[in-house]
């Protein structure tokens, strides 16, 4: 693509509710300014902003706050939660390729503790009740109406059922999921920015962590955290003058299959053949085809890790192994992944931190650096409509 990543920025990362002295909006601005500084640019250079579904920090207000002189492109990807982080960078690249903008910053800021928590109570979450029902304020709330009366309030319960089905069909085990958690935690322990830095984990720790939604234990679930991240994308020409080492955007794909919707988050009526995929098979096959890269050529991957079991499924979706072989592939351990600690152990920023770590790997700056890394896959969440990027080291 004629688009290059030239800047990355992150705020401090803390556990959920850990940041109360600075607004979520302020963190968004901080991450964007840090990413611009990393690139040797300022807000005067920015003419585009991109984020993805669920961001409270409207691009128009970010532009106002940062004094951006002329915003010519503002984009929100319609992929929920962690599905859209790679796509926000992809859309930034599309804007640049089409000459709609020259410097686009993709961002995500998350401080859920500063807002109403889902499940906090009906009177806080849904103000209007009629005939014993809550009046859904948007389509997504109406989708959740198929789950809420059954005590399902979040992704964990829905994804647990996908993982349970995968275990039933393929014999996937708790120990294989534990390997994902332990490997990711080991990376976090080399990364001082990680929320779980200094908190080593063994397979025994994983197996004895409390059950949340069977088969998912606490250590199978991502963190909830506060913090923000940003990524600056610009033209290949302008990237030559960047302060930092540019990283090539070799490919980007997003795709939503038939009747997928909120899938494992809601009504579970995706097609049978998609049920125990993460829905990422279309994204994967298009990415490998458009870039001409084979999965075995990838040196390091940042796989969206909201749940360990979904990482095993993502290995299958992205063709690192056959369907049903995600567990044995994790045991094999040949692919370094989530080298900053991921959502499980670094921070939960809906996966934009995965893009940041991918860039770091290809600059040679990771705290768990893969020697000579030239190709890095970055994926959005499995189990919701997703997206992916292939990043390459600049020669």
């Amino acid at each position, binding site marked *: 693509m004629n688009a290059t990543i030239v800047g990355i920025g992150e705020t401090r990362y803390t556990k959920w509710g850990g940041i109360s002295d600075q607004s979520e909006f302020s963190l968004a601005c901080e991450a964007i300014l840090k990413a611009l500084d990393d690139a040797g640019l300022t807000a005067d250079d920015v003419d585009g902003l991109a984020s993805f579904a669920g961001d409270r920090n409207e691009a128009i207000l970010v532009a106002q706050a940062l004094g951006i002189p002329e915003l010519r492109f503002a984009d929100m990807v319609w992929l929920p939660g962690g599905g859209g982080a790679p796509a926000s960078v992809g859309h930034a690249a599309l804007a640049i390729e089409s000459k709609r903008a020259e410097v686009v910053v993709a961002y995500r800021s998350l401080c859920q503790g500063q807002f109403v928590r889902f*499940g906090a109570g009906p009177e806080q979450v849904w103000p209007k*009740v009629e005939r014993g*029902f809550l009046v859904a304020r948007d389509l997504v709330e109406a989708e959740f109406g198929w789950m809420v009366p*059954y005590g399902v*309030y979040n992704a964990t319960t829905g994804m647990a059922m996908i993982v*349970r089905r995968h275990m039933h069909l393929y014999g996937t085990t708790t120990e294989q999921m534990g390997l994902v958690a332990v490997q990711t935690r080991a990376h976090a322990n080399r990364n001082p920015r990680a929320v779980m830095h200094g908190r080593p984990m063994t397979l025994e720790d994983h197996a004895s962590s*409390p*059950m949340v939604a069977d*088969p998912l234990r606490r250590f199978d679930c991502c963190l909830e955290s506060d913090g923000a991240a940003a990524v600056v994308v610009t033209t290949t020409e302008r990237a030559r003058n960047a302060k930092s080492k540019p990283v090539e955007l070799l490919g980007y794909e997003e795709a939503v299959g038939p009747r997928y919707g909120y899938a494992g988050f809601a009504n579970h009526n995706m097609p049978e053949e998609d049920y125990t995929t993460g829905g990422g098979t279309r994204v994967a096959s298009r990415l490998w085809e458009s870039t001409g890269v084979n999965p075995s050529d990838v040196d390091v991957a940042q796989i969206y890790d909201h749940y360990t079991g979904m990482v095993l499924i993502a290995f299958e979706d992205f063709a690192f192994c056959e369907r049903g072989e995600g567990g044995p592939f994790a045991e094999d351990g040949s692919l370094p992944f989530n080298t900053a600690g991921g959502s499980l152990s670094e921070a939960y920023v809906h996966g934009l931190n995965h893009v940041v770590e991918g860039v770091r790997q290809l600059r040679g700056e990771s705290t768990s650096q893969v020697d000579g890394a030239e190709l890095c896959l970055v994926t959005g969440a499995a189990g919701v409509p997703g997206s992916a990027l292939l990043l390459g080291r600049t020669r």
Partner: protein
Amino acid sequence: MTYFPDGMIPPPVSLDTAPFWDAAKEHRLVLQRCSTCERFQHPPGPVCHRCRGSNLAWRDVEGRGTVYTYTWVHKAFVPALQKQLPYAVAVIELPGAEKTRFVSNVVEVTPDTLTVGLPVELVWDDYAELSVPRFKPV
């Protein structure tokens, strides 16, 4: 019986989904069906996703199915559910509705008896203003 205590969150509904809950008050399990294609679709929508026609109706469905997958929830995300832990949530395949999948609870089961493939049948759980379909082993 009421399976969940007072204080649980009722379903958020829209004009497109409210007919399901209105039928539930009459203890009828209904799903949307296209009168042209003669096929069910869930979740319901403004048009048939196959023929894109709007010749849609709500059709009664037999409350028998099999467990497609399940989970035991061990954490109370709403305080009122603390005493209910763990409770079972399942995806239930409804052969009477072309294997449409329906998320609900399975009651009267234990971790030993709840399995993929378990035959289940509908039970209505009545609250003051709401009837919720749940399932129990046949």
